[in-house]
């Protein structure tokens, strides 16, 4: 009986070790791509200023919404950064539609992360998801803007 219990404990221990060593191995295989993304983000942070982002917008609502989605897709970082940039853009006179599209695309579309997403989750999945998210960022902006107009 005791021997049985001990062998059960041993096999459970082996399973835990195997589970975690497989996790570390899988993680290490993705690590070079993750490092590549982090260093690319560092370049973005250092080379692209907020003034450069603001100067892109034209004042035309339709054009600016597409531009907002495009910029949000290219730039990356914590969502909090997109709120701050978006808030400042709004203060600078950029339309709420464009700013909402920008915030929507910031987290959901990732041009910088695309190589990693494609390498890990598959090219077909990564491209389809990012394209759909890009389109949805504009739809999200329109829906939010119209609802806000009706509600307030």
């Amino acid at each position: 009986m005791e021997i049985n219990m001990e062998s059960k404990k041993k096999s459970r221990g082996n399973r835990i070790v195997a589970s975690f060593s497989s996790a570390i191995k899988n993680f290490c295989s993705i690590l070079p791509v993750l490092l590549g993304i982090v260093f690319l983000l560092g370049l973005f942070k250092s080379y692209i200023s907020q003034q450069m982002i603001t100067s892109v917008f034209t004042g035309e609502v339709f054009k600016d919404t597409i531009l907002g989605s495009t910029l949000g897709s290219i730039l990356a970082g914590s969502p909090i950064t997109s709120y701050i940039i978006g808030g400042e853009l709004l203060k600078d006179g950029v339309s709420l539609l464009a700013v909402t599209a920008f915030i929507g695309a910031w987290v959901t579309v990732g041009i910088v992360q695309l190589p990693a997403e494609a390498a890990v989750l598959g090219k077909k999945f990564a491209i389809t998801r990012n394209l759909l998210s890009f389109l949805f960022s504009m739809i999200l902006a329109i829906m939010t803007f119209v609802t806000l107009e009706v509600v307030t």
Partner: protein
Amino acid sequence: MNVEKQKKIKTIYRRFSFLIFVIILYVVLFFFDAGKTYNAIHASVNIIIQILPVLVLVIFLMGVSNYFLKPKIVSKYLGAESGVKGWFIAVFLGILSHGSIYVWYPLLKELQDHGMRVGLIATFLYNRAVKIPFLPIMIYYFGVAFVVILTLYMIIISVAEGKLIETIFYILERRSVNNV
């Protein structure tokens, strides 16, 4: 050279090609503007320090999921048979997950290999846009009404995107079967 060795070299090349590209970019930009490039390295190191705890958490979760989540369990809660429950779980986990989006890829890959639906992966990733701890800052800039409406629409769109991806994949698969 045998086929297996060639395969191994190809895999290593694929794994490191993106990182090598970024390193080359750094070297080129260093000659263009050394100060800014140095700042970029500094910013990158800061990002690594910030995401390190989340990376450790992800490795831990991967280990736990390897131990507990057998394909049968994953397919019950997040697989083809998961139903409405699966969408709720994906939305909930997406909102709760912390850190940058890319640190979650390894765990999602693991779950995908165990049978997680592609639509649920997309829904999980979309909901990473809804971050409860950051909402006060969003409210400060845009107001409560905007934040409530945007958050609600984001959750609805996340499910729509998941469903749409599954439909697109289904159509593409059927087309490729018909072509064969």
